[in-house]
């Protein structure tokens, strides 16, 4: 679905992406793993077209539509979840009838159907994260990018978020999941890319059936090898 070839990006003279190559296949959950400053967020920005590359290219299947859920979502506090969804539907020029249907459907998907007319200012961090995922689903994007969806959530919130991602997976959605919580990625992702200092260290296929892969060990090993 997406092929990234030799991505190079500098910020103020510092190389944050250093020849990164990877591919995201249709229908998979692709985990992005790496320590702080590894270049995960920059990689996402590049895919979203929010930042320009110094060299390299992102090849997308035709003109795919991408839904994005940011790490720290901000929604106008005076709007209800329903109004937030309609706002983002309108800017995508989704016809009104369809926008209303998608709004209700996706708020149901993320478990916010009973809170849809509540003002966003009354939302907890977990509810905001779920609303961010719901708005990312608007317009039925071919690819979803979830940037730290469990960031700032308590244990229960994390469990709910994981369930939601698995639900999206069952619906056959392609997802790029950026997270620094190894256990969360391990339990939902099909493949994981470990990056450090903007470079690809390892790509791991996770087979959830045999449970033989220890992501934590692989991650530590990859980073240990890099740091030594």
């Amino acid at each position: 679905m997406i092929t990234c070839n030799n991505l190079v990006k500098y910020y103020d003279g510092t190389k944050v992406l250093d020849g990164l190559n990877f591919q995201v296949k249709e229908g998979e959950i692709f985990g992005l793993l790496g320590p702080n400053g590894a270049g995960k967020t920059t990689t996402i920005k590049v895919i979203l077209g929010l930042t320009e590359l110094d060299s390299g290219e992102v090849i997308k299947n035709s003109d795919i539509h991408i839904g994005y859920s940011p790490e720290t979502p901000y929604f106008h506090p005076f709007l209800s979840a329903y109004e937030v969804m309609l706002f983002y539907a309108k800017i995508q020029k989704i016809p009104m009838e369809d926008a209303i249907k998608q709004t209700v459907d996706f708020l149901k998907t993320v478990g916010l159907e009973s809170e849809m007319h509540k003002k966003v200012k009354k939302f907890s961090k977990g509810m905001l994260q779920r609303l961010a995922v719901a708005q990312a689903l608007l317009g039925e994007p071919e690819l979803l990018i979830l940037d730290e969806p469990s960031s700032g959530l308590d244990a229960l919130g994390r469990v709910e978020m994981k369930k939601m991602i698995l639900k999206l997976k069952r619906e056959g959605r392609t997802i790029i999941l950026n997270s620094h919580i190894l256990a969360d990625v391990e339990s939902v992702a099909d493949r994981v890319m470990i990056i450090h200092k903007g470079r690809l260290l390892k790509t791991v296929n996770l087979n959830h059936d045999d449970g033989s892969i220890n992501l934590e060990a692989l991650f530590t090993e990859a980073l240990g090898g890099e740091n030594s």
Partner: protein
Amino acid sequence: MIPIIQIVIKEKLRNKIIYVFGILGAILMVLVSTGDGLSINGIKITTFEQRVPVAIAMNSFVGCLTAIVISLQTIPSEIERKTTHLILSRRIDRGKYMFALTIGNISASVMTMFALNLSLIVFIALLGRIDLLFSVLGSIMIMNINVMVLSAIVSVLSIRIPLFLNAILSIGIYFVGVFHNLLSTLSNAVEGPSGLLLGFILKIVPNLSAVQNQAAGALINAPIDFYPLVIQLIFAYVAITLTFFMFKQEV
């Protein structure tokens, strides 16, 4: 773009600062319209006709400051809270996005200006001076040109200039604009580099005083000279057009 404009207006009209300015403006207006102690250049202002221009001038001052406050923060806030990511990831053109935010600022500023003057219109109606209504409305509409120009300039500057610096610059632009005619006379009298610099500044700052003069003229049903009004509208047009090209930075 319309949903973005609407959301800016909604957000701005909920801003408490606007209500503070609004109440302040209304109090000033009531004092000016009803007080007996008001005098200008030692001449006592007694009749309602004499007080109305003062009230409009006061409201225009408050309205322009409000326009600056409204327009200063919109774009920096969008960038800071990363709403830009959510909007731009939906393949919305950067220029159109900034344009929509600017139009939102201008609309909110103009609405605030009308709200400020609403109490004056109510006063006129209550006093049974319907004969003054059209000239006052015309004057307020002309004054709104200044609000539009200021809002557009502050918005476009806010794309590139840090908030605090932009605030100082915007207040500077307002005062140079209001004293444009006076400073123009001064620049003719001053020679050398200072005179050239002042002349240059006056060329790039809109002549807000020319608009005020026409608004004052409208109050006494004097014929309106549209030339200075069109010039200020061109300033606003140029500023609004620049919003399409100014937002280049990384988000």
